[in-house]
């Protein structure tokens, strides 16, 4: 073959490879869920910022209150949403937030994908002061440098913030000082992408090493003789219900764990589904309700693991993968799906009460957990950079606001 033709062909190969990398690459968008505290909603955005919105009653609107980092400044993390020569290479240090904010006593705590935990003071942010205002309790951990990528959310209990990281560690940070509360972080065998659960002085956390750990919240020592072993990575948030921990795994099974021993709950048969469990679960009247990446919501008997109902029914096709945790509003369980819809089901029977929207492409994939407050359900559509509220009873759109700058 002539060298010239071969050279041109090699150029074609290189071009195809470059293009294939750019087309269809999963852009990191994040899935931070909105949280409400005292008529203010807080959410992490796809641009790597924490934004708060004040809710007004008449008319019912949400107005941006403050944004950190402020407008015009780069988001938390480097690279701004991608990396590489043609921005075709996704990087773990993109400016995007997966973590859901935790709000307590005028402070907002959040983890950024870059590997830092931030404590923000509302008053300082409203005033637009530089960060950190240490006298107002603001800090970043670690101060210099970074820990591993943070995908899970922080939880604060008794003055200590607990958060998992992609460096396999669970960190306990004193919220007053921003320093480690334990002698050293608790180390697992692999990345921690899950959100911890704190209950009664014990921190429960799952890891990619297939294990669920129970750790003493005060000193970071293991509570169980050995962690609970599954056959797949754990990214879901544990649920505490009726003295039992419920957790799903990437081995496509849903487990119940005895909190006192760390062993499988007697009489509960792990429930097998079609795909991974990633989102959290809720408990309702002796039933555990959980979404799955196979596109179904399952209601399981809390004692036996027997399936009470599923939505959609097993003889019907699934909806899109369900990653986020559901919201429980009275007798309704409401969840979002990758097909861009929000579904409200009767928690007892699994019947569909309403879904939203009816027009196609209104929402992008809904991967953030839903949050309910006072008859409203808050939905964060990360693809369209939109935060909106639906009426819990009928699914009507009450208000929406753009989270983009």
């Amino acid at each position: 073959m002539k060298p010239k033709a071969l050279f041109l062909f090699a150029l074609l190969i290189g071009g195809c490879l470059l293009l294939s990398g750019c087309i269809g690459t999963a852009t990191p968008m994040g899935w931070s869920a909105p949280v409400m505290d005292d008529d203010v909603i807080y959410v992490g955005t796809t641009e790597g910022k924490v934004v708060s919105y004040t809710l007004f009653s008449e008319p019912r609107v949400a107005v941006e209150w403050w944004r950190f980092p402020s407008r015009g400044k780069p988001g938390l993390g480097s690279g701004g949403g991608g990396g590489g020569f043609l921005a075709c290479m996704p990087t773990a240090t993109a400016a995007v937030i997966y973590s859901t904010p935790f709000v307590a006593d005028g402070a907002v705590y959040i983890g950024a994908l870059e590997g830092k935990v931030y404590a923000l003071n509302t008053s300082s942010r409203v005033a637009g002061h530089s960060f950190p205002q240490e006298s107002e309790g603001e800090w970043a951990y670690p101060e210099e440098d970074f820990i591993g990528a943070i995908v899970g959310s922080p939880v604060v209990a008794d003055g200590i913030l607990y958060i998992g990281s992609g460096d396999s560690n669970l960190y306990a940070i004193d919220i007053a000082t921003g320093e480690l509360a334990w002698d050293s972080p608790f180390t697992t065998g692999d990345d921690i992408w899950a959100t911890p659960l704190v209950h009664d002085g014990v921190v429960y956390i799952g890891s990619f090493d297939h294990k669920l750990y129970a750790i003493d919240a005060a000193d970071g020592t293991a509570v169980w003789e050995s962690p609970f072993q599954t056959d797949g990575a754990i990214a879901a948030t544990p649920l505490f219900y009726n003295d039992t921990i419920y957790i799903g795994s990437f081995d496509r099974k849903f487990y119940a764990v005895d909190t006192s021993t760390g062993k499988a709950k007697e009489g509960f048969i792990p429930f097998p589904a079609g795909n991974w469990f990633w989102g959290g679960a809720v408990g309702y009247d002796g039933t555990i309700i959980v979404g799955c990446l196979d596109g179904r919501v399952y209601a399981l008997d809390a004692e036996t693991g027997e399936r009470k109902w599923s939505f959609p029914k097993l003889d019907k096709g699934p909806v899109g993968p369900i990653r986020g945790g559901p919201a429980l509003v009275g007798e309704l369980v409401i969840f979002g799906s990758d097909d861009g819809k929000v579904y409200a089901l009767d928690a007892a029977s699994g019947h569909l009460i309403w879904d939203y929207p009816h027009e196609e492409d209104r929402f992008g994939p809904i991967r953030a957990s839903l949050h309910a407050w006072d008859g409203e359900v808050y939905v964060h559509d990360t693809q369209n950079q939109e935060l909106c509220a639906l009426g819990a009873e009928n699914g009507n759109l009450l208000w929406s606001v753009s989270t983009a700058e």
Partner: protein
Amino acid sequence: MSRKRLIIILVAVALVFLFFTYGLVDLWNLLLLQPMLNFLILLSNVFFSNFGLAIIALVIIVRLLMTPLTLKQLRSTKAMSTLQPKMKELQKKYAKDKDKLRQEISKLYKESGVSPLGCLWPMLIQLPIWIALYRSVLQLAAATPEDLMGLSSKLYSLSAIHQAVPLDPNFLWLNLAQPDSYFILPVLVAASMYVLQKMSTVPSADPQQQSMGKMMIWMMPLMFGFITLMFPSGLALFWVFSNIVGIVTQYFITGWGSLFVRAPAPAPQVAKERGVETPEGALLEEKLATERVGQQEGVVNGKSRDKRKDRRRSRRAGARKTRRKP
């Protein structure tokens, strides 16, 4: 209809049917991406949950499967080199008739059973594998949480597969989902590709082909080395080991080939006729130029101007007779 032609038609019909049933993207996922993803996971399981070793094992398997094609390509390259003198004769004979030249060349290829595209097949077949491998490395190493979530819909329903993900992207100094931050792999890709090309290239006496070939031997490794700077190191690892296996295969079939051989220099007269500078031609030019300067001064080496004029005229006349049009 020959059996080969029948198989090709059947495969084409099947592909068209699948395309209309699943669409292009789903077809790509079904036929290439999913098998690649799942196979890599199973290989990782075999190789102590090591993603890097799984990629190296994949190289060996792909190369083994492509051995018949590789051998065909090597034979084709070898045969092409033996055809060079005959091709030159045809070029001389039909220099003024391009159509006839093309016909005769085509006839020559047919008679000798050589395909000019023989060297392309291994590359053509490896191209979709490279693309599928690139996408697989990104998803398996879970560069983003969205990648990991997307992976869940592409896995076969085998427990061994679901239990193995996500894979550990770390291998030696590398994060297989990210470019090599120490730039070692881009250098290795370029160097190994250079060696392989040099071993497999047949030097040509044609100066134009020579210069093009020289450029190719440098340009392609440099280009791939540059591309490697931007790509996940998992793909670069595949390329390096693919080249190494290629070098070893080539060595056992043709030895070191042209790796340590300089390309033959074209004859000075031939080069001058083609307007190509050569060291011998430059010396000749210098000598002629010196003589010309001397002639302007009247006498050179004791010889009169007129006699030198006559000699120049005759020299020029002789050169005109032998000069050919390019």
